[in-house]
């Protein structure tokens, strides 16, 4: 019997050794699991822990909550308070995401604090940065212990991140095969994001019973937020034509090809609508640009897509639920005056949101809310400085980065030293904590909360020159940036594929996809840019190893210096790079992506079937090496 078993498994292994065989095995496993699917487990007992706070019984039997030591790694995501005391009067609980934390103002200013000041009623701050939908039901499970008179739910920006179930893999892989990434995206948004949002809201309603709820619908910085430059267009048929249309700004035809899965075409359409003063159409396209990346399985900043906004509005139809609809409150084209970045609010934005939420709570609490206080200029200045950093790290245009830097300086001219420190920190090649500037940052709690975060300490060093320039201009730092860049210019040979030369954002450093990282650079935009700083003018030899579907142009400081034929196999070419003293921009201009998309879609569908994220963006070329010596 043993011999028979061994022979049989060997035969089977040989039969199934191919990619096709692996897929067959994966499908059989999914089938077996689907057939044996057991009903969902009973609601797990999450205990009474409220986020990072554990219940503590007082001598008089009352319950307080205290921060649990074993959650210390999470403390900085939540309100900076040690204890939530027993209830002594009317109490509102605020549950939400980073917007509800007043991100970039927190801990100096919080939305809960502003609400409390306006209402004159205790507001318990249970908002958490990075809160995702599955974390909400357990939080609401524990809410009765706080005995809230009302609850505010200000969430939805993080609900596009969906944990995929086994059956979703089948749905999405079929969608890719049938209609490519555009179909898959639509399916993801309409089925998964909407479905999960609805389920989350139902679970919250079940848990709240008779406690009044105020639902806040988040809004997006529609006018002033752009997708990262490395996110252009997904793998679609006729991508070459799409690019040609893009060059001529023929948005409608582009959208007909990308089916709403590119923010670029929608941005062009919105700009054209604005030129016609058609605000309604512009808003429609800007919303579509916001939603284009949801469900596309690429990295993007948080946002609340239309389907989630609709579900939040629908949740307000239930008895006892009131609605604060920020999209309606903020007008048709919200911009930098209300938003620090994609979704986080400025001082003005916070004030208007606070006033609206307070108005919704007032009849429940039977209070007359006061006008929310303006944020102090010193605090707002630091929020704008942080916004400049944050916008730069998402690849936003220099103009908007500069706006926030200037605003910071206008609000508090005393911030100049801090701006100089940030500029120095980003110009240095080393990790920020090694710089003298770091010591300045540590004296600023509001700034430290964000720039001192472990993620920032460990983040790859990227090309932060746009940020440094913006800060230098706003704070009149003279030639500091160029001086530092030259001081930090590396000795040859240079590895131009290092993020410090080629990536303006953290996502560019690791790739825009959310699947496994690659051992080479997949280029998802028509042009790759490299910053090369030299102390003196010199001609270096570039050694480029690449794959492309056609000719690749090499440009140095706007001058074409070489053409590389480009081919399907890796090839290594040498080009001369005449570099000036100081900053140089080397560009590789790529041909359109290869036209044949069926193999790419089949590969993607197979990845999806195995629970691996595919690469949805069209690749203009691939780089394995780029050195200069």
């Amino acid at each position: 019997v043993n011999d028979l078993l061994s022979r049989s498994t060997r035969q089977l292994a040989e039969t199934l050794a191919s990619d096709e065989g692996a897929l067959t095995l994966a499908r059989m496993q999914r089938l077996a699991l689907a057939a044996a699917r057991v009903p969902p487990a009973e609601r797990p007992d999450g205990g009474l822990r409220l986020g990072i706070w554990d219940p503590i019984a007082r001598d008089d039997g009352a319950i307080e909550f205290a921060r649990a030591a074993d959650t210390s790694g999470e403390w900085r995501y939540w309100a900076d308070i040690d204890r939530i005391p027993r209830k002594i009067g009317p109490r509102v609980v605020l549950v939400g995401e980073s917007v509800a934390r007043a991100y970039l103002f927190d801990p100096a200013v919080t939305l809960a604090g502003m609400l409390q000041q306006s209402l004159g009623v205790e507001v318990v701050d249970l908002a958490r940065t990075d809160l995702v939908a599955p974390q909400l039901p357990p939080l609401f499970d524990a809410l009765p212990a706080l005995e809230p008179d009302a609850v505010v739910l200000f969430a939805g920006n993080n609900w596009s991140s969906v944990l995929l179930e086994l059956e979703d893999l089948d749905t999405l892989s079929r969608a890719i095969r049938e209609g490519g990434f555009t179909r898959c995206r639509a399916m993801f948004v309409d089925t998964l994001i909407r479905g999960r949002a609805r389920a989350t809201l139902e679970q919250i309603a079940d848990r709240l019973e008779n406690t009044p709820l105020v639902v806040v619908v988040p809004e997006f910085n529609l006018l002033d937020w752009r997708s990262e430059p490395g996110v252009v267009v997904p793998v679609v048929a006729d991508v070459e034509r799409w690019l040609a249309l893009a060059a001529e700004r023929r948005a409608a035809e582009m959208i007909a090809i990308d089916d709403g899965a590119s923010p670029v075409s929608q941005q062009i359409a919105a700009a054209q609508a604005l030129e016609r003063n058609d605000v309604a159409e512009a808003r429609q396209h800007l919303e579509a640009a916001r939603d284009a990346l949801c469900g596309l399985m690429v990295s993007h900043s948080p946002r609340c897509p239309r389907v989630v906004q609709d579900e939040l509005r629908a949740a307000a139809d239930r008895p006892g639920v009131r609605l604060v609809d920020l999209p309606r409150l903020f007008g048709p084209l919200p911009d930098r005056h209300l938003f620090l970045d994609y979704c986080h609010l400025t001082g003005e934005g916070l004030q208007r949101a606070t006033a609206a939420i307070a108005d919704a709570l007032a009849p429940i609490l039977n209070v007359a809310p006061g006008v929310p206080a303006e944020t102090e200029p010193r605090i707002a200045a630091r929020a704008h400085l942080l916004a400049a950093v944050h916008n730069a790290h998402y690849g936003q245009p220099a103009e908007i980065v500069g706006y926030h830097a200037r605003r910071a300086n206008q609000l508090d001219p005393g911030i100049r030293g801090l701006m100089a420190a940030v500029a120095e920190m980003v110009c240095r090649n080393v990790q920020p904590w090694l710089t003298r500037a770091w010591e300045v940052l540590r004296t600023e709690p509001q700034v430290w909360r964000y720039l001192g975060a472990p993620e920032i300490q460990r983040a790859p060093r990227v090309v932060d020159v746009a940020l440094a320039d913006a800060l230098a201009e706003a704070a009149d730092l003279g030639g500091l940036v160029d001086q530092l860049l030259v001081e930090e210019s590396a000795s040859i040979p240079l590895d131009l594929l290092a993020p410090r030369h080629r990536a303006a954002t953290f996502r560019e450093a690791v790739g825009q996809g959310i699947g496994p990282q690659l051992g080479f650079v997949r280029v998802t935009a028509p042009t790759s840019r490299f910053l090369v700083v030299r102390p003196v003018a010199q001609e270096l030899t570039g050694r480029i190893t690449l794959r492309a579907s056609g000719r690749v142009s090499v440009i140095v400081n706007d001058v074409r210096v070489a053409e590389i034929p480009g081919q399907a196999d890796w090839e290594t070419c040498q080009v001369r790079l005449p570099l000036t003293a100081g900053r140089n921009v080397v560009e590789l201009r790529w041909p359109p992506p290869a036209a044949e998309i069926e193999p790419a879609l089949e590969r993607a569908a197979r990845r999806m079937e195995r629970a691996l994220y595919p690469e949805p963006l069209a690749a203009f070329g691939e780089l394995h090496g780029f050195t200069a010596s």
Partner: protein
Amino acid sequence: MAGPVIVGLAAHFHDAACCLLVGGTLVAAAQEERFTRVKHDPSLPRNAFRWCLARGGMTIADIDCLAWYEDPVAKLDRQLWMGLPYVPPSGAQFLFRLDAARPEREIRELLGWDGRIEFVAHHLAHAASAYDFSGFPDAAVLTVDAVGEWTTMSYGRGRGADLDLFEEVRFPHSLGLFYSAITAYLGFDVNDAEYKVMGLAPYGRPRYVDQVRTLIEELPGGQFRLNLSYFDFLTGTRMFSDELCRLFGSAPRRPETEVDDFTRDVARSTQVVLEEILLDKARWLHERVRAPRLCMAGGVALNCVAIGRLLREGPFEEIFVQPAASDAGAALGAATVAHRRLTGWAPPAKRLSHVFLGPAYSADDVAALFRGSNARTRSYMNDEELVEHVAERLADGRVIGWFNGAMEFGPRALGARSILADPRHPGMRDRINALVKKREAFRPFAPAVLEECARDYFELGHAAPFMVETCQVRSSLDLPAVTHVDGSARPQTVSATTSPRFHALLRAFERRTGCPILLNTSFNQRGEPIVCTPMDALACFVRNDLDCLVLERTVLDRQDIPVAWAETLRTTGPPGAGVSSSVYTLL
């Protein structure tokens, strides 16, 4: 160097690694964990791959062949067998992991390689990694690990260009899994902490040898059989069964709890039985092959206590253990086997003289680290001044982070990424374990000794540059920090040829103290891979209680670091969570 350019790869289980073989010469090798900072990182070594090519001055377009350290079809065969009677098994541990195409697919998709791939059976890769780098013209070959495809132990012979494996022990009967199961039972992480059991063993008494022997039935020739009623690794959910607990009359030790006499005694008993079996099988292999030398690889070959005993009591005159004997090193063997297949010739038979095959950093790289800071560093123009300065600190009882030249390949720090201290200091071991490495108090440290003086202090009849064996200390000096409880040590002999700066430091320390020996342990803290870059070293230095950091010729004392550094890193551990677990997945 003429000849094919071959990249060897190991990944998808633990300790992913990559090496570059050019014309049969090993040019570069590195483990992926050093770049990602995830201990034992099993993911495809994309960083190590890029670095190896850069080190060799190559691009991907220059490669002739990639060699993979495993036969995916044979592995799938074993996985399907493990899941019987379910075909295919669908438990969580199996889901989407029955995938013989994965290595090739990931090599194509993630590394971008579209050329030739050679798949090399796992134990053949281990065997070649030992024999091809031993420099022996004729040798017996023994590989021992947990499992590779079906094989858990193989016996062979290398003669000239030929390497032949003639017998194997097949899964599930495995010395590696036997030792790992006890490791798990004793509350340590498998696939990571087996060396803790080995280090703990001398503290115990062999009171449970009879019980441990019931776990393994010795069979004639090269074979043995596990008594599977005591093991549970076939399910993929845990390593040992309740029957094992009954056998020892005790529940498994809970991780991170106190280590008691029972734990020590079981560790000792397990080590004794492992050594007995290895000795027995080595004798049988010697009878079969009749060669005076032995080459070894596979994770069990990292059990340096067993290797020491094999040397002392076994039939072989000389043993070469491939210094990266676990899976990482199999990348080397995969590459040399591929070289044979491409050329019809074996790589040049040269003894591996060092493992400084990883990234190195220049004085400029180090200077750049401090350019924008308030740290007060001191740089030396030559090695002579540097080593005098460092030796003075060591003699004063300081603990030094020593970053010197190209990083080691394999698990041992051998003077390139090392923490060094005075071995004569009575409290040094406890201090480094507790405050620097932040690990268990029983863990021993190894000595590094001038090669030319080694015989004066250790029962060692040959150069031992890789710390792969233990021997007895026979020193006139008292060396409490590097002498284990049983009087043994795991010395590294340091040669002026392969480690000139480290050798000079030992010599300078000897001039000051009369002791040509230093405590040498890996430059990392618990749960963290050994440091790779100057930045990693600096962060590790700041986080831990090291007194002084030496980055090439730049020296930084603890009192000279800005307060902000320590306060920044105080609240953050090293990045990366590691991949240790309580069970081998075997998948």
